[in-house]
């Protein structure tokens, strides 16, 4: 069965090909069957492989399909590597991916480009599976760029609107900055270690590089560049909120559950390198912490239901980075999985809300929708509880593990822990602000609208609700992957700190209740204060990062492009032409045809020659 692992990306790839080659001529039913069915087949295969793999007790499994290119020492192949980590990833991708595809068959039904949508989605899943199953960094890079392309295509799916195209390009180019850093990292690793096979490379690094050596620092920094691009962490986080221009299932699949966690996967996969560069690993923790706080503050100020969720995604990935940074590898992967459950749930539920309310995105134009949209309401309640780490939901377990690991860390551990707890407080506020505003209080607008669901849309929501609630009890089999060096188990932190960790998100929820539900505190009064208003504006704009990058990179580039549109090099050649034309004109003027002019120049020439002769 394990030998069939190549089928995992092949099913969606075939789905993609058949949808592209029929170019929209298939009936929608057939498109839905191909589109969602291919992912379903992948999931079944993945599940069977997982059962066999776990039963076998092996630590890993390698399948070489063919050699991609062999030039000198470089011999990357289309080879798959399965261990506990890629097993978790492939199950999440195919499992959650299938649910989202199923949901999309209903959600996108009215869209004229139904087939194009599913073809891109299938290509995405195929690339994502390549990414997590690759046994070498070149193949991983193929998946990495492939998911970036699909993300671009799907953000700009509704291409008639120029702003969607802008968001799509912004996403692609911003992540490409990170990708390029990663590519340079590959060149460095290959030049130094002579291989790009991940396991061989890690092994060679361990034996050849000392802890803290310059090369280890450089290599892990370059890979980190790729990770922050894809995972929308500081300083490359600005693209993700705009990426919400795509259809909502895209946001659920690509920009919440799978693609944006690729950076977390990359760091976890190459964690040996990061352990060799403790300074970079600590940097990962700080990046995670700062990002999670910044995004948390911003999420509290947004009005657009999808942007709130987008910032919350950035923030939650920040937690994963924090976990990676403090060496809690498996906790981060665990949070990656539970986050995939509850964030996919939240996005799909948001899709239902938006779909039912005729593309309304502004939460303040909704209100009291809990009776009107019961399934969405239940989804949001459960999803938000998990997001806010309410005890015994899935998010509680994973976030708890990360924070405890931070606390146990030497040095700045306490500071990181406090930041993480503050983040949990913010999470409580922004997630329940959304719930209270949309589903409680007075009903506004859209009175007669009924919830648009049906089997295909309701089933995934129900399954995801179960997973978001109970996913925390799943044991992920990654111990063998991170066996060495993990800060391990046996948590002995004081009961008091534990109570704090449980209580703080509840306080956040409580504060959201007082502001948005009982209206004990008034947002308007708070906003009347100039400082609060200024802060609000600052946070709302995403801490001014967009404007800053615009000023630093976009405007100078456009300026340079504009002033040199005509290519000044060409002007140099043109001036050569002009000079020869002028000289030609001057010389031509000497040909007057007048005898006295010629006589005079002959005489002058003779005098000059004699003068030269005499003087020399």
């Amino acid at each position: 069965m394990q030998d069939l692992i190549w089928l995992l990306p092949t099913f969606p790839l075939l789905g993609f090909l058949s949808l592209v080659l029929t170019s929209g001529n298939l009936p929608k039913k057939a498109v839905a069957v191909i589109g969602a069915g291919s992912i379903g087949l992948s999931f079944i295969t993945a599940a069977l492989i997982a059962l066999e793999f776990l039963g076998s007790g092996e630590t890993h499994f390698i399948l070489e399909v063919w050699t991609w290119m062999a030039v000198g020492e470089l011999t990357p192949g289309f080879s798959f590597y399965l261990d506990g980590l890629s097993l978790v990833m492939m199950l999440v991708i195919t499992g959650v991916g299938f649910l989202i595809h199923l949901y999309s068959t209903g959600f996108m039904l009215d869209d004229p480009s139904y087939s194009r949508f599913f073809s891109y989605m299938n290509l995405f899943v195929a690339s994502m599976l390549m990414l997590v199953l690759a046994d070498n960094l070149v193949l991983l890079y193929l998946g990495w760029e492939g998911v970036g392309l699909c993300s671009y295509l799907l953000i700009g799916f509704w291409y008639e609107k120029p702003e969607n195209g802008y968001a799509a390009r912004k996403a692609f180019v911003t992540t490409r900055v990170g990708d390029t850093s990663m590519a340079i990292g590959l060149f460095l690793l290959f030049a130094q270690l002579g291989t790009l096979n991940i396991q061989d490379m890690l092994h060679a690094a361990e034996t050849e590089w000392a802890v803290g050596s310059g090369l280890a620092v450089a290599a892990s920094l370059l890979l980190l560049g790729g990770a922050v691009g894809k995972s929308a962490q500081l300083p490359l986080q600005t693209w993700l909120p705009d990426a919400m221009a795509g259809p909502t299932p895209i946001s659920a699949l690509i920009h919440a559950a799978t693609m944006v966690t690729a950076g977390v996967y990359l760091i976890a996969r190459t964690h040996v390198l990061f352990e060799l560069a403790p300074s970079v690993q600590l940097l990962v923790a700080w990046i995670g912490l700062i990002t999670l706080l910044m995004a948390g503050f911003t999420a509290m100020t947004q009005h657009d239901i999808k942007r709130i969720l987008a910032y919350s995604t950035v923030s939650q990935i920040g937690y994963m980075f924090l976990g990676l940074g403090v060496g809690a590898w498996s906790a981060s992967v665990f949070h990656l999985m539970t986050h995939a459950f509850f964030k996919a749930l939240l996005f799909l539920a948001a899709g239902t809300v938006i779909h039912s309310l005729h593309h309304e995105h502004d939460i303040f134009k909704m209100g009291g929708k809990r009776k009107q949209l019961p399934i969405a309401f239940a989804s949001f309640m459960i999803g938000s509880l998990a997001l806010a780490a309410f005890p015994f939901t899935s998010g509680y377990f994973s976030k708890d593990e990360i924070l405890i690991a931070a606390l146990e860390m030497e040095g700045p551990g306490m500071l990181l822990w406090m930041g993480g707890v503050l983040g949990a407080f913010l999470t409580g506020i922004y997630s329940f602000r959304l719930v209270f505003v949309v589903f409680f209080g007075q009903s506004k607008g859209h009175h007669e609208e009924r919830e648009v669901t049906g089997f295909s849309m309701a089933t995934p929501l129900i399954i995801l609700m179960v997973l978001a609630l109970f996913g925390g009890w799943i044991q992920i089999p990654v111990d063998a992957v991170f066996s060495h060096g993990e800060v391990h188990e046996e948590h002995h932190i004081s009961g008091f700190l534990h109570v704090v960790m449980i209580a703080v998100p509840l306080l956040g929820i409580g504060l959201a209740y007082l502001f948005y539900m009982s209206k004990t505190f008034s947002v308007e009064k708070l906003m009347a204060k100039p400082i609060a208003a200024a802060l609000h504006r600052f946070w709302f704009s995403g801490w001014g990062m967009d404007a800053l990058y615009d000023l630093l990179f976009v405007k100078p580039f456009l300026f340079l492009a504009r002033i040199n549109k005509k290519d000044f090099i060409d002007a140099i050649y043109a001036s050569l032409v002009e000079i020869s034309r002028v000289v030609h004109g001057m010389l031509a003027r000497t040909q007057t045809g007048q005898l006295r002019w010629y006589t005079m120049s002959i005489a002058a020439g003779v005098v000059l020659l004699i003068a030269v002769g005499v003087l020399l």
Partner: protein
Amino acid sequence: MILVVLISILFFGGVLAWLSEGLDSKYPRVIALTAVVIDLLVMLTLVGADAGDSGWIVQLNAQWMPRFGISFYLAADGLSVLMMVLTAFLGAVAIGSAWDEITEKTGFFYFNLLWTLAGVIGVFTALDLFLFFFFWEVMLIPMYFIIAIWGHENKNYAAMKFFIFTQVTGMLMLISILALTYFHYLQFGWFSFDYVDLLKVNTSSAIEMWIMLGFFVSFSTKLPSFPFHSWLPDAHSQAPTAGSVILAGVLLKTGAYGLIRFAIPLFPEASMTFAPFAMTLAVISILYCAKVAFAQTDIKRLIAYTSVSHMGFVLLGIYAWSEQALQGAVMTMLAHGLSAAALFMLAGGLQHRIHTRDMDHMGGFWAKVPRLSFVALFFSVAALGMPGLGNFVGEFLALLGAFKANIGLTVAAAFGLIFASVYSLWVIQKVFHGAYRNSDFDDSNLHDLSRREMFYFCAMMIGLIWMGMYPQSFLDLSAETIAQLLNETGQVLFAVGL
């Protein structure tokens, strides 16, 4: 002998095509296509053939002007065969793109097209430098006519510019060739233009440098590299589509081929001293031309500048002069040959349909011509270096190899990957996305790709996917040539302690 046959078919096919116009103006294109396809089939018999001890799969060395040491010396190894197959393939594609577009003086058009191709094949196989120079000129003059007669609004200016740039730098190469022969005469007492003989010439390093520069300027103008690139945007924007296909797909590659075959092996010492400068020019080409490309509104000019940018990776790889870098350069030549040719065909197709190249007048074509748009998206994505397609393999290998030679320049060159995504996606946005607009042009002829066009584009797409997913079929062909070149220059460089 087979090489003579290959060239003769094109020469005589060209003459025949010209003559046949008197019978029917549709005959020339059929004759031209037949000639090119026959050539392609004959070439395929050479693919993968064993090179034997001499290192050449086929060779022919006949006396020509023995008094001056000039011989008719043609030979092909794996690299030559790869380049020839690319030439014939794109030749067929170019004829396809001219099929309906060229309606005037068809006989003379196909005559010029075939003679250009014949010159190119000669360039890829000639091992006598005099003969090489002869073919170098043969491919230039017919191309001048193609631009000057069947070009667009500013064709005379563009054709003249193309001619002068290539001719002036060609003269520099001729001087270098003569100087090299002269030094051979001084050293051995007899004249020779034979590549193998000339490899043995020893001169002082200053002289070697000057002679090498003569070759370099000529080849890097053809490539083209910054700062010799400015003929290309004019030539491309004015040439008919078939001319652009041949220019971008094939003619530019002769410059790179010349560097690999002649400039570096003949002057290894001077070349390695010069390598940092050449690589710097490559990086400037990549970044500067990507930036200028982004600013263009004429879609053909834009693609032309991206061509210069991509050829920068080739130049970078060549002067890094290592196995990975050279394989990368060769793969980029092949892949760019297909992707650039396809993009020019798309631009030409659009111009044929709506009579403008100005992107400011376009937008939202996806809704109107989905197949054309998808094909354009495919080739743009290929051009921006998406793994799984040929261009990625080339650029990745070139950068990977160059990294060992020069870290700083390679890192700078890698930024070209970001710029490539900026301009490629910008074209997609301007032309194919957004709301459909047709206020600025007559869209009555804007129909989707015909079956014939789809056939050509599919062939090129399959080629790029093949190169991207299983590049080994191509890498294996050039591997032996590259190993041999590295070995030869390595010995020389080792001897002088470089």
